[in-house]
């Protein structure tokens, strides 16, 4: 499986949500719905504080419970990669994937009756472009690339910087990394 990863530098993220709007316009996401979002996590007591901003989305897990749990095969790994897509033709809107996702990344019921989610902009990735959110980010805190390539920017960042993933204990093997 070719593994695409997103690496997000929380030291640079300002929580501006440009990634959210860039996704929404690029992918023509219906009114009121989003495929990505920003989390602000503050720890400590005034004035000893730490605040972390994180742009979150589907983790495109290598071991994706949503794919396993989907009764119709609508949720699938795209084209031999870890990119998880939903085939609207097969999706019945049963929401099994919503319960199976440890990241609450499948919040979206598309008005046309299927579950929608982040696609890592595979239509752009195919053309060698970054996902729309990564391209728009004004602080360039988001990076995208192939984990299999040791020389890719994402591989280099993960080699040199302290990082984490969300909910590693689920065993889903997520592919969105946060530099901390």
């Amino acid at each position, binding site marked *: 499986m070719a593994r695409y990863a997103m690496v997000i530098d929380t*030291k*640079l993220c*300002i*929580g*501006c*949500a*440009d990634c*959210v*709007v*860039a996704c*929404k*316009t*690029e*992918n*023509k996401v*219906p*009114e*009121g719905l*989003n495929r990505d979002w920003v989390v602000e996590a*503050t720890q*400590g*007591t*005034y*004035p000893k*504080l*730490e*605040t972390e*901003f994180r742009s979150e989305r589907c983790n495109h897990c290598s071991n994706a419970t949503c794919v396993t749990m989907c009764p119709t095969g609508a949720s699938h790994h795209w084209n031999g990669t870890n990119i998880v897509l939903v085939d*609207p*033709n097969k999706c019945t809107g049963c929401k099994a994937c919503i319960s199976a996702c440890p990241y609450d990344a499948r919040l979206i019921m598309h*008005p*046309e009756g*299927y579950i929608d989610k982040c696609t890592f902009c595979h*239509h*752009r990735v195919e053309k060698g472009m970054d996902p*729309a959110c990564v*391209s*728009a*980010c*004004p*602080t*360039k*805190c988001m990076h995208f690339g192939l984990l299999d390539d040791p020389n890719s920017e994402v591989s280099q960042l993960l080699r040199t910087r302290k990082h984490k993933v969300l909910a590693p204990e689920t065993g889903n093997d997520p592919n969105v990394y946060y530099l901390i």
Partner: protein
Amino acid sequence: MLNQNRGPDGVSMNRRDFIKISGLFGLGAAAPAMLAGCAARPLPGQGEVVRTPTFCDMCFWKCAAYAHIENGQPWKIIGNDDDLHSKGRLCTRGTAGMGAYEDPDRLRRPLIRVTGADGLQTFREASWDEALDYIAERLKKVEQRHGADRLALLNHGYGAHHFQHLVRAFGSASIAEPAFAQCRGPRDVGFELTYGEVIGSPERTDMEHSRCIVLIGSHIGENLHNAQVQTLADAMRNDVTLITVDPRFSVPASKSKYWLPIKPGTDIALLLAWMHVLIDEGLYDRDYIERYATGFEQLKRHVARYSPEWVYLETGIEPETIRRTAREMAAAAPATLIHPGRHTTWYGDDTQRSRAIAILNALLGSWGRKGGLYNKESVSLPHYPVPEYPEARSDFRAAHAGRFPFANSGVTTAVIEASVGADAHYKAWIVYGTNLPMTIPGIRPTLQAAIDSLDLVVVVDTMPSEVTGYADVVLPECTYLERYDDLRNSGERVPSLALRMPVFEPRYDSKPGWWIAKQLGHRLGLEKYFPWDDYAEVIDWQLKQLGSSLEEMKRIGVKNFPRKRPLYFAPGQDVRFFTPSGKIELYSQQLADKGFDPIPEYTRPESPPAGYYHLNYGRMPAHTFGKTTNNHLLFQLAPENTLWVNPLVASERGLVNGEYVRLANPDGVVSNQIRVRVTERIRPDSVFMAHGFGHRSRKLRLTHDVGADDSELMTRLKIDPLMGGTGMRGNFVTIIKEAV
């Protein structure tokens, strides 16, 4: 609420009522179309895509971009890679630009105020010819009876250039924008007094090369001035030492090595203490000061009493922290930037605070140096040949005669005040792109009095914002995505031009600003100032003088030119500053001559009365003031503002996260309701809210009545005596729980 002068019969006694543009249009306007499609929905970009260059108008930063249309439908807007304002990346608002074009609440047709048989004033739709004739006829009368200089233009935004041209051609030099007296005026005047040059926009900060950056109340990252955000991020990537002074744990504070949660209003004391340490410990740039500055000995004597120990008692910042941060600044100098900020109208001594920032930069030797403040340069762009403007009989200074000697630009509040009464100086206004009642705190009563007195009020806007309700005639401009404007030519690191051109045909019956100005010009006998059929001719002519053309710019959007002057001073270079002394003026004789402090003094701010809090306000990344809150893409992101309160305050007052409260000030003004956000990120003596919410215009159907408006709570304004700035931060509020 605004029509307080209603007589017993219910008929307004105001000559001109405020009209809530609500009854005129039904609610039948289509919501943005739901995406058509089916299970076999095509992937984005597979259709026929047309890409058109523009530069953004979602804020004032003017990022060059490409708007994309797919199969004739608005798709997306992305930054132009060749542009230094955006570096190929737009901000949250710029990315949402299509929402401005799509807004179903846009002004659609010209409107004229009419009084019905029942005495009720409303707007009726009019043709462009009728509306323009109406305006021209009244402007001619103003000219005949009072003089052309009695017309004032109150404006904001790049499209205002067309109306500035019209007003100057007409014979007026009274042009004022809130960007001066309600925003960055004190900063630019403070730096001009010190260095002989303004900071300008974009700011001439060299952050990508800074090794130490000090932000004082500037929350870059919450305001999304694009290149500011990007170069601050560059600095962070370079491991800059970031020092943030803010009563709130702002976004940059959260990225800082030092956060100084200063007691509100005591910034000048801190700045003087830093100067004290730099001079006392011999850490300032002696060679730079000797070579370029004047007044050092006076400065040294002046700051001697501002010891860190004394200043600690004012600011709450520990003496050791003051010393350590001063040493950090000196260690990184001259690549140390004391950031000049942008919105600087805080406490009425703002020009002096900006002077203190300017002086501190001088002690560190950062003006004209790499990592400090660079020399900006724009393109020498020839003006399209039109006759010289007639000499105006008076200019904006007529509005504040004898006051504000250092106002180098129109003061909006003074213009509005000079429009009240039968003998008022101003008789007519054109208001372009600025929603005055929310932009200028506490202005509504004066605004009502002014429109009762004025012979004509014209509002040009894209949206039915509250100010349109004060107009005699409302002219619907099309958005930036539907028009040509002047080429962008801002001073920058690299001189560059950018093109704004129509991406779409104007929707409804809206028109480009250049067309409106030209049509009015023709009706006023000013044809010779508008010798073009289409503004594209002007742009093409200008570009051809530089060896480019409109055709080329339609392909590339941005054209960068080589610099003619170096970006920084050369080592030991002889520099003559544009000040009276030719030096950096640490001590300002200009100020002394006018009876002001020649070196900034600290004045202790008022403390909030018991049970009250400092009202702090600022920006949020999703919105530009109140200008974008009705944009459907941004509304979905941030529909309302919140009231930040410290958990101690929440517990004392029994406030729950997410509940609605109202704010009241000591003068009895009660705000619209606002949700509580309990957070450790704020001092317990302060509350914070983003500006731009609580719109009163019902025609802004998404944002009307949502969130609270900070500016209406600002009834105690501290006016900067140097330049007329409206100091907004000396206001206090208490919190009223909503009855459950």
